[in-house]
């Protein structure tokens, strides 16, 4: 009982730590002064301005599109590769994993510039595609790292049982293996998505004209002080996601109750 309270308390502390800066930036989205340093009174003008800013809208679109696509593709490639890596012999596995660590280890600017030179020498036009490829490249290693522990935990006899019952490896993968490593896959997706949303340097060097993401907009604003419109945007995004979460939570708890009733 006491333990439950302690863990609840700890959890709340942790969430305060995580959300304190977010709260600050949300508050500043209502600050009529343009500068982060001073409070100039309450205003909604940044929200109004947000809807009139063409660059932010297009950047938001590309940010979400690239994040979703790259996270999805990284998750697919990463998960499949992780399964392969899991089945490798020790030496091979070590080699592949070490190479896999490089994008995680390399500073973004090195990756960004190196990829840019790569694309150009491949005669790829910098733009949406190259940016997407780059995001996939740095997403996959994280997905692999997220999926591998779950694979290691898995009982191999269960996959064998599926094959035994006539499941092709692909079917066994879909119906037996994936459901079991699902937490790892979801985690991998979340990490890849998060990294993609947050990436600036690599995106900058590998994108082309007209395709910008929010991070690029924000970093480029830094010199003059980031406009509170961005805070407004962040606050809105947060609100939307939180709202969705609340909705899902309500739905699923409703479903549960419902099922229980029917069950009786």
């Amino acid at each position, binding site marked *: 009982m006491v333990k439950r309270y302690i863990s609840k308390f700890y959890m709340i502390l942790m969430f305060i730590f995580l959300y304190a*800066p*977010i709260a600050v930036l949300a508050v500043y989205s209502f600050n009529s002064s343009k500068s982060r340093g001073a409070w100039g009174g309450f205003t909604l003008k940044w929200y109004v301005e947000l809807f009139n800013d063409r660059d932010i809208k297009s950047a938001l679109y590309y940010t979400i599109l690239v994040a979703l696509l790259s996270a999805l593709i990284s998750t697919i490639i990463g998960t499949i590769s992780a399964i*392969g890596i899991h089945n490798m012999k020790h030496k091979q*596995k070590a080699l592949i994993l070490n190479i896999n660590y*490089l994008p995680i280890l390399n500073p973004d*600017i090195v990756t960004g510039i190196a990829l840019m030179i790569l694309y150009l020498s491949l005669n790829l036009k910098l733009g949406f595609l190259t940016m997407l490829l780059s995001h996939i490249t740095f997403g996959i290693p994280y997905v692999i790292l997220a999926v591998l522990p779950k694979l290691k935990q898995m009982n191999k006899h269960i996959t064998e049982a599926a094959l035994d019952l006539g499941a092709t490896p692909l079917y066994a993968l879909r119906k037996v293996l994936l459901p079991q490593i699902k937490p790892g896959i979801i985690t991998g997706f979340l*990490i890849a998505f998060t990294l993609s*949303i947050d990436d600036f340097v690599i995106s900058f060097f590998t994108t082309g004209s007209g395709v910008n993401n929010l*991070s690029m907009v924000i970093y480029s604003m830094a010199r003059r002080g980031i406009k509170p419109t961005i805070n407004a945007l962040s606050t809105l995004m947060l609100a939307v996601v939180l709202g969705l979460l609340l909705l899902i939570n309500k739905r699923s708890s409703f479903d549960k109750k419902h099922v229980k009733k029917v069950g009786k």
Partner: protein
Amino acid sequence: MKNKAKLLTYPYIVWMGLFIILPVLLVFLYSITFNEINNIKTISFTINNYKMFFTPVYIQVTLRSIYLAALSTIICLALGYPIAMIIANSKMTSKSILLLLFILPMWMNMLLRTYAWMTILGNNGLINTLLANLGLPTLNLLYNNGAVILGMVYNFIPFMVLPIYTTLSKMDNSLIEVSEDLGANKVQTFIKVIFPLSLPGVISGIIMVFMPAVSSFVIPKLLGGGKDALIGTLIEKLFSLGDWNFGSAVSIVMMFIILLSMAVMNRFDVDKEGGAGLW
């Protein structure tokens, strides 16, 4: 069966060859040449870039970076593990919600978050204002290693929590029961059974925190005040200033050091895991 599953990695191996190895080779090439390498005829090789690195100043930077990153990683682990456990032990529906709530702040831009931290930590920031109002002495919270570590912990802790959470969720409960049956109390059970079983997740978490932390540059620049350069800031600076050659050498050395120390760790691990290595 095993051999076949291995094939699944081949597409990624090709991908790696193209998008990871080739760029790294390029970086390596820069590290051993003068100037640009656009023209193959004028290429000339040198090891000066490496020589330059091995001077006390840069070694110190490297050590400092590894120290800060390691410290942040340890703190992430210490703070994150309980969180992962709490989430893993919570009810089915609240699990995914908690998880998303946990990573949601990271969807706000890192620069914004870091600036927000500066607003909180500054001399006239929220914390110090609070302290002053309480009649307490104010603190120097910003522009020191503490702030850098705080920033790193803040930004990387989800990457520690998530993989640990995945290994803890749906852990074989009977093993925990056996442990308690054999007389291990909750703490001993944790140390001897739960933690070792979650080790793969912990290792993933450590890698996902430590490696980007070693080479991070925005956080040390903004929260550390750019006074004590870290290897990430150094590389970023060298590259953006156009000195790709030396920058490349620094990156290569860093990769080498980190991967080598990982290999050493791996060696230790081999005995325990029966040849399975880190994995």
